[in-house]
């Protein structure tokens, strides 16, 4: 997904003079050619993430469309107040593109992981959040974001599904059956494997914000399981709002709050958080019994 981001953003910069890119050393080398072609619109501020967000806000104030990029914990967690004030409070927007997700950087440790990024953006108004599940979903999301001035977050990950579903902005039903299981982004394949042989409906989305509330209301018949690749329960509030007035039971699965002080790779951390197929099967079947 990172390569798709680099190729697509490089092309967008070539095609649309309103766009700009701001990075803070991360991935800077991959944009060397773009920087050479557009020195007035491609910036590497060094290891300065607060400034990256501030520069994005300033560019947007002049009418440009800035793309900002870093590891999720540096892009979102570290610069949270700049995102809140330099973008939201100024009524400007930007396209924030992160890599690393919840535990792609498993061996780097917790400092390089951001299970809380989507929850942090949920405290703010007006953010669209894309969590693509496959590299072939990334380009269209990035291109669409160039055509307006709203606030957009694109959360890229190493983990991805076998197939792309480019039309999964809303809930896209992939399996029809009983209770609804919603899989966000790269959680789709583990969910499909975990629920093999179970009488469930599986729906997929790569755009959890705004949540497809109409789709959710149409699909829920009493029970819903939401599986997200970031902090467990992040979507509990919007799901509860969407189902307001409908009697239902809900199970929210995702990354645990407790820090896993182990290294390994993303598969190890998925297992530790119960987000591998076996763990998901245990949780989902226990809930639906």
């Amino acid at each position: 997904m990172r390569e798709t981001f680099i190729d697509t953003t490089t092309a967008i910069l070539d095609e649309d003079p309103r766009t700009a890119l701001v990075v803070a050393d991360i991935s800077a080398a991959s944009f060397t050619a773009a920087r050479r072609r557009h020195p007035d619109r491609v910036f590497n501020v060094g290891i300065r993430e607060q400034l990256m967000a501030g520069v994005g806000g300033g560019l947007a104030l002049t009418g440009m469309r800035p793309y900002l990029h870093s590891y999720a914990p540096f892009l979102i967690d570290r610069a949270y107040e700049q995102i809140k004030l330099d973008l939201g409070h100024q009524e400007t927007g930007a396209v924030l593109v992160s890599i690393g997700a919840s535990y792609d950087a498993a061996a780097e440790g917790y400092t390089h992981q951001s299970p809380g990024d989507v929850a942090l953006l949920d405290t703010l108004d007006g953010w669209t959040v894309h969590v693509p599940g496959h590299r072939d979903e990334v380009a269209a999301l990035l291109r669409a974001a160039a055509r307006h001035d709203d606030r957009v977050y694109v959360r890229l990950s190493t983990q991805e599904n076998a197939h792309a579903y480019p039309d999964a902005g809303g809930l896209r039903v992939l399996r029809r059956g009983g209770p609804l299981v919603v899989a966000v982004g790269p959680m789709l394949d583990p969910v499909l494997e975990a629920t093999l042989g179970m009488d469930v409906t599986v729906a997929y989305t790569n755009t959890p914000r705004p949540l497809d509330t109409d789709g959710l209301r149409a699909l829920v018949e009493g029970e819903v399981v939401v599986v997200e690749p970031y902090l467990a329960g992040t979507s509990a509030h919007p799901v509860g709002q969407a189902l307001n007035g409908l009697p239902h039971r809900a199970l929210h699965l995702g990354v645990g709050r407790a820090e896993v002080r182990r290294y390994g790779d993303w598969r190890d951390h998925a297992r530790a958080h119960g987000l591998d197929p076996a763990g998901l099967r245990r949780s989902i079947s226990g809930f639906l019994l």
Partner: protein
Amino acid sequence: MHMKLLSRVTADVKHTPSAHSTLDVLWVLYDRVLRITPETVDAPDRDRFLLSKGHGPAAYYAVLAAKGFIPEEWLDDMGGWNSPLGHHPDRVLIPGVEIGTGSLGHGLGLAVGTALGLRAQGFLDTRTFVLLGDAELDEGSNHEAIAYAAAIRLPITAIVIDNRSATHGWPGGIPVRFPNWSVSVVNGRDHDQIERALRVVSDRPHLVVASV
């Protein structure tokens, strides 16, 4: 004129040093330097003035009223439920205000982005100014912007109002915190000195320390 307006806006709030420390610099900016009028607040090539130090904005509001950006009547109810004027300025509510501030350490980064955006769009004669307080420099975010602006030789002008209000001071002075910037140190009450310093345009960022 603007002194009378300042008393009007500060009539029922405590006179704080921060409300008055900026008055002369703001007046010189709007009266002699900035290419902006109430008619050009949305012109893409207008000069930009970003008040980073959103604290004590009475002087800012008084100058905006004196120059016709906002009605004088607005000054009577600062901070009121029905007033567009808060104790920190909001760009969405006040014509001519470029950024909403209050939390310190945001204006300089926004100014760097603003100047880069203007340059990318070919507005090469448009100038970008940002005003900070000496205590505001405590915020580390400023130093990210100070270093980067110098590294890329971005010709913005930062004004630091120095009323020695930083809790731990700046031993050695403020200019040494702005390496590779050009520097003017002026009496922050002397309008001609202030104007000369603000008119400096070079091939790198410029710092004006206005001591009050």
